């Protein structure tokens, strides 16, 4: 486990040292504050609009951080040839995959905490109420979604040679699932065969990450599902993370690495 944690620590340090996170955070904060300063019809305490925009920016930023950070991990190790001294140590390829995943997921978690802290402050400044429990639930679910995404991108990075194609495909897949994932089986009903069967199979195969997308609840002050349901959904997410990681490991362990 030493190796896994060491590799994970390295990834977290990378996020800390790179400028991506800071740029996205400053951009989010700046846009939110800027839009928050606009007065609409002299109405006071308008919060939902601001919360909506802030959460949208947080979601976009988190997806960008998760995908770009993860997609470059293994290709960069190969390109810079650091994978060789690493694998020449008593480290298995499975540990490399696990470490990279853990690092990216943790890095995303830290980024999320910072982003949501900002959101909570902005939201409380407008509403004069601390919605701590719903925010915590939303952060947890958001983190779970990023876990699935990170595992998916990691798998993509051992399948696709170019990080850019991996990034693009993963973005399309995740945004596609968030947008139409829950409708696929009903869309399938209106399609002729074999499209109908194909869509149904896809519906049951894809990770339904739309469950983890809860900004609507936060914006509209709605009650988020109880913790038990959130944990059940988390288990579902963890199963997909494991599936993607195992697939990534199976592919990576067979790859020949030539110096």
């Amino acid at each position, binding site marked *: 486990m030493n190796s896994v944690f060491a590799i994970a620590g390295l990834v977290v340090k990378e996020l800390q040292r790179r400028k991506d996170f800071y740029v996205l955070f400053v951009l989010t904060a700046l846009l939110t504050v800027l839009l928050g300063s606009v007065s609409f*019809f002299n109405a006071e305490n308008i*919060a939902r609009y601001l919360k909506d925009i802030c959460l949208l920016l947080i979601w976009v930023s988190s997806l960008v951080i998760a995908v770009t950070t993860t997609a470059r991990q293994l290709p960069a190790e190969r390109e810079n040839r650091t994978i060789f001294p690493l694998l020449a140590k008593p480290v298995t390829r499975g540990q490399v995959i696990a470490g990279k995943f853990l690092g990216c997921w943790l890095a995303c978690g830290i980024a999320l905490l910072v982003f949501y802290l900002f959101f909570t402050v902005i939201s409380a400044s407008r509403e004069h109420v601390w919605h701590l429990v719903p925010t915590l639930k939303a952060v947890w679910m958001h983190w779970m979604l990023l876990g699935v995404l990170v595992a998916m991108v990691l798998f993509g990075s051992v399948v696709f040679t170019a990080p850019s194609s991996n990034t693009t495909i993963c973005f399309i897949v995740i945004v596609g699932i968030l947008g139409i994932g829950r*409708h696929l089986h*009903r869309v399938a009903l209106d399609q002729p065969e074999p499209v109908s069967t194909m869509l149904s199979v896809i519906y049951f195969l894809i990770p339904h990450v*739309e*469950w983890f997308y809860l900004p609507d609840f936060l914006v509209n002050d709605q009650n988020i599902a109880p913790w038990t*349901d959130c944990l059940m*959904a988390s288990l579902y997410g963890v199963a997909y993370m494991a599936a993607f990681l195992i697939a990534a490991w199976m592919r990576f362990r067979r790859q020949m690495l030539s110096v």
Partner: protein
Amino acid sequence: MKAVSPKLILFALGTVCFALATLLQPRAAQWGGRAQSDNLVKVFLGEGRRLFANHFYTQADVVLHSGYYPSIFDQARRNMKSSALSGDSDADHDAHESPGETQASKENDKHDHESEHEKKMAFLQEPKDWIERFGRKFLITEHTHLSQDKESEILPWLRVSAELDPQRVETYTVAAYWLKRNGKLTEAEQFLREGLRNNPDSYEILFDLGRLYSENKHEIDRARNLWTLALARWNSREAGKTEQDLSAMEGIAVHLATLEADAGNHDRAISLFKLAMKASPHPEELQARIDELRKHTSPQP
């Protein structure tokens, strides 16, 4: 060949760019009016801004329903199922208030509207499988509306929508309705006037502005002028159309007729009621009012 100095090349290119700019600038100003627009959003987004405007307009409705809102798939399914119901989500605002209705019919139809709105918003079907059933736990499934003190939450979206598409008339009328409900009469008037500046032919905005003067500010003369102008605009815009916006005409005519009747101009009121009868779903109601007016105007035996 002697090498040309890079500085000289740079200077030559700069001169060419400057010359081309002076040559092309007057032409560019004629290309769709985009470059000469005084609106920064229009300059950046061009006509694509209308797409965003529509999104933000719908977003206001989503906020009004506290996040409970049909997706495009739900809407498409609903439209397929019931062609009788309007599939346009934008029409939901009409369920809250249809400007073209008479006060009496509004009272009568209020319950119908609410039940129709409930029916329209019952877009969630029985879950088909465990994924959908469990997924519902993470979906807003309760149809609620914002409480009165929170209604102003929809205003930013309408403001942004109007900013992106100033030619979208319903943005002004809907926003004015909610502003009036929240007692912001000055802001409602200003916003409607802004809408009128952007859409000088809009009888809808003229009508709403008239209502604001009539119902909220009790400035009857201004209301009369605005509704008369609205009726004239309706005639000029809708004349010759195969599918006319009759409900709007009915609304304007009825309101103006009522105002004229109250002012004692019975003949004018009767002719306006008659005009409204052509479009009204409740002509008998209007006929009764005409009869009543005639009683007042006809000489006593």
